[in-house]
Each structure stands twice: as C-alpha cells, then as structure tokens.
C-alpha cells in the first residue's frame, strides 16, 4: 500500500486533490481510497486530505499517520503544522514553492532523506499561468506523478477531465504537464549532482 498525505489550506483544493489522485489510481486498475480530515471548512484554515493506493481492497479507515509521500500545497504551513509527522526517511516530499529546501530553512531536516525524493515545484505559478487562478492542486498532482511514478500523467489528466468542464480541465492538465516536466528535470539534476 502507498499512502499519501496532502496538506494545504481551505480553498486550495486539498480535498479535490486527494479525490483526483484516487480516481487516477482507479483508472490504472488499482484500489484507491481518498478522504478528507473532516472539520468545519474555513477558507485559509489548515486542511489535510489522505489517499491510499493498493493492489487489493483497502479496509483501513485510520488517518494516514506514516505516509509514504507528502504533498504540501502551502509552504507557510511548514512552521504551523506538524506536516512531516510520521514520514519515513525514504519517503517523498513535494512542496509547492519556488524556493529550495535550503531556502525554506529545511536543510538540516532534509539530511538523511533521499535527495531525489525531496522535490519542490512552483505549482501556484503554473496554475496562474495556465488556469488563471492560484489553485495549485492539479499542478501538484503532475509533480507527484513525476516524483513517485505511482501514477502516470495521463491518468492524472483523465481524472481531471472527469471532474471539470473541458476548458477548466485542459488548463489544469497543462499546469500538471508543466509541473511533471519541472519535477522530472529537477530529479535529473539532483541525480547528476549526486553522481558528479
């Protein structure tokens, strides 16, 4: 089972991101479970959503306390919420930011993790460019596909098409594709830096 925890703020499409991820997994024939951390929804309040992917039916209903991957939609949460709680040293982290882990003050924290699994992507910028609104969730799913290879970019696209009207869907798919390319390039650079 592969478990993903998504952190963001109310209004950033955190719950939708988990839902889309589960649909993408389903499209690939996997069992998938997505659910929000239920609360009184308020714009701007910290929100968490969860997604599990597995090759067999998923019965577990507890929140994801030991994720394999983290998607952080809003870097201002880093110092407010225990976003990294339970993450193992071989886990994946994808942060929506135009800054690096070092610039975010996470250099010390990042030591011990596998560097190619620590990714950043300016998803809000890509969303503004393609969608015209600061909704980073679809772009982050493109980045997630590139970082973890758990789902394909095509499945992310078909999940987005199922959810949104054509015009909005295509704009989000373009943002996801740019994020996918960005993260793929980033991982390549990290690998070269390690070997070189």
């Amino acid at each position: 089972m592969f478990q993903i925890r998504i952190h963001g703020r109310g209004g950033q499409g955190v719950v939708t991101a988990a839902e889309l991820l589960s649909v993408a997994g389903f499209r690939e024939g996997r069992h998938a479970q997505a659910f929000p951390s239920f609360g009184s929804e308020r714009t701007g309040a910290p929100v968490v959503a969860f997604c599990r992917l597995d090759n067999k039916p998923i019965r577990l209903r507890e929140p994801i306390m030991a994720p394999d991957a983290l998607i952080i939609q809003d870097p201002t949460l880093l110092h407010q919420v225990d976003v990294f709680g339970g993450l193992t040293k071989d886990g994946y982290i994808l942060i929506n930011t135009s800054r690096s882990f070092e610039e975010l003050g996470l250099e010390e924290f990042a030591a011990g993790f596998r560097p190619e699994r620590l990714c950043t992507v300016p998803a809000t910028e890509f969303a503004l460019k393609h969608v015209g609104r600061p909704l980073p969730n679809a772009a982050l799913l493109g980045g997630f596909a590139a970082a973890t290879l758990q789902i394909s970019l095509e499945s992310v696209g078909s999940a987005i098409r199922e959810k949104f009207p054509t015009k909005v869907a295509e704009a989000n798919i373009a943002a996801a594709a740019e994020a996918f390319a960005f993260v793929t390039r980033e991982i390549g650079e990290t690998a070269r830096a390690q070997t070189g």
Partner: protein
Amino acid sequence: MLKQVEGSAAVAEAVALCRPQVICAYPISPQTHIVEGLGKLVSAGQLKPCEFINVESEFAAMSVAIGASAAGARAYTATASQGLLFMAEAVFNAAGLGLPIVMTVANRAIGAPINIWNDHTDALSQRDCGWIQLFAEDNQEALDLHIQAFRLAEELSLPVMVCMDGFILTHAYERVDLPTQEQVDAYLPPYEPRQVLDPADPVSIGAMVGPEAFMEVRYLAHAKQRQALELIPAWASEFKRIFGRESGGLTHTYRIEDAETVVVALGSVLGTIKDTVDEMREQGVPIGVLGISCFRPWPTSAVRAALSNAKRVVVLEKSLAVGLGGIVSNNVAAAYPGSPDLVHTVIAGLGGRSITRRSLHKVFKEAIEGRLEPVTFLDLDYAVVDRVLQREREQRRSGPIAEAILREIGLVAAKIG
C-alpha cells in the same frame, strides 16, 4: 459498472435506481451530499416520476415522507445527528403506522457539545423506535443496503434506516460496483402498499388506540421485526443471486473459526479491526471479528452462534449509554452463551476520535491478558479529565466543562491523528 466515487454519490445513485417517487430533503452534514445528488438527478429529468420536496425541517421531512408513503408512494429521506432527534416523534410514528419509508442516517455525534463528526449516538438513540436498522461496513455495502432496504421495508411494511458512518464513508472516495437498472428492477418489484389513502376507497390511518388494543399493535410490530430476522438473510441471498456479491444479512464473521477472542463492532471501523486482526493472526493470536450488519431487529441467534466458542468478547462501539457503559455490548452480553463478565466494552471513536490499529492492538492485547476493565474508553486523556475534576473539587464556579478542556489541550488543527 465499477466507479470511483464519493460514498454519498454512490448512495444517491443506488437510491435513484430504486425509483423513489417522493424524496424529502432537509440539509445536515454529513448527509447533505446524498440528497443533493438526488436533487440533481430529479432536476435533470433522469429520475422520474419523482417529486423532490424541499422541506423546512427534519420534522417536516419525516412528516412528508409519512404522508407520501401513506398515499402509496415509495418515499425516501436522509438525515443525521440533531436532525434525527428533531424528527424523532415522526420517526416513531412512521414505524407505528407501518409505513415502509427508507432513510439514510449518515451517523454523527449528538451535542452538546456541538460536534459534526462521526459516531453512532444518533442512530442508537432511536434503536427502540421500531425501524429496522442496518449498518454498512463500506461504501459498496452502503449502496447495496439501500436496494435491500426498499425490498425489506415494503415486504414487511416497516421503515428501514440504513446507517453509514458520516464523513468516514459518506465523504470517502472508493471503488464501488454500481448495478444496472435491470438488476435493481429484478430485485425490487413496484411498491404494492398494504394500506393506502385513496379517495376512491377511504380508510383512516393513525386513529387513537386505547388500552384495549395498544399492546396488540405493539406486539405485532415486535413480531414483524422478529420475522425480519428470517427474511433479511433470505433477501441477502437473493441479492447475491442477482448482483453476484455478498452484502447485508444479519452478521458478518471474519476468522472466527478457532478464535478465542472475538471483537464485535458495527460499521466502517470493522475494516480497521480486520487489518489489526490479520496482523495479530500473523503473530499466532487466535482472534476473530463479528460484524453486526443488522442492529434492529437484534440477531440474537446469529450472535450467539458466532460467539459460542469465544473465551472472551470485546465489543468496540461508537456509542455510550451514559451511566451504564455500552449499548451494543449490552445486547451482545444478552446473546453471549458464556458469562457476561467475559464481555468487555470498549467505547471508541466518540465525536470522530480516530480509531487506530495501534490503539486496537493495545486494547485487544489487554483483553487477552485479562487486564481489560469491564468498560474502557479508548485513548481517553485521563490527565485532562483529572485536571477538570480537580478544578471542580477546588472551586464551586468551575465553569463550562467543554470549553475548559479545549483550553487545556490547545490548538487541535495541528494534530493529524
């Protein structure tokens, strides 16, 4: 057809396939997505003939459902929590009048303190109202139980409540197999009422009944529910024949054959319990699970049979009989052939508190080692409770309890589990 959808959407589609003729709706979380989904189907003309009636309260929702059902329509509504309490008088009436209304209860805690999260207090507060109460383990079963519920309700002329865990199931996206209209039509014939308000053939429904006949009416309601204990498994078998999968019935058992310890529970927590039991089985612990799918009528014989070889029973329930302990566990103890002292009550998940494998391992281990109290509150923060009690001893005007505890524990938004 396999689909990856929200639990509420799956239920809305299943209810639509049952061709309800009147849907009464009043919004309350976590039920709202279900009637919203049905409202969209009605307004798009995909569900017809069907009247979708927006009412001004839950009391009106059940009252309109009663009127619609008495006029011969297949009637459906959904609610949760305070909404169920607000309609309680009409809930009893629907059962007393023998009207086959189907209602989803998206289980949620009851205030005060106000809390929108899941537990089973709402449905279990109505356990003696005369409705059949079915509990879903996952979204597939929630979907399937609605189809079975209409059949059951109309065959027996009794209302049926389908209980599914609020948020945990209603808001979860998971894979479901949606049946075809042909399959549902083959299982569920058109509604043929036993009683109907018809101007061409007038009858009275709901007359006053005095001491000379009230006991007999009540006895017949009880006898009908006992009759349902035979019909529910039969219709679950019929369901399997048409739809090709097991769903519903009275109880589900899991790895109980040689189990010395059996855990009993209702609803979606069964999944987490089964995963925990699998992990304990790998360590050689003989432990199994009894899931209660039908809480009312209470399946005494099925529970007794499932527990006949158990050396101890742990009832894990999301409900609390304040001043007594467990609600489900009291029913289980009455059916358990061994000593009631061997039936442990674990109150868990109240107001949406997460029930984790880690905590389940701990409490099951304590039961096996004979260290579990008769009534335990899973993951209760005793330090906080003790400080509140201390303050109450020290000062007369100790203040409101809930607010004091919130101050004690601080910001909760930062917590994940």
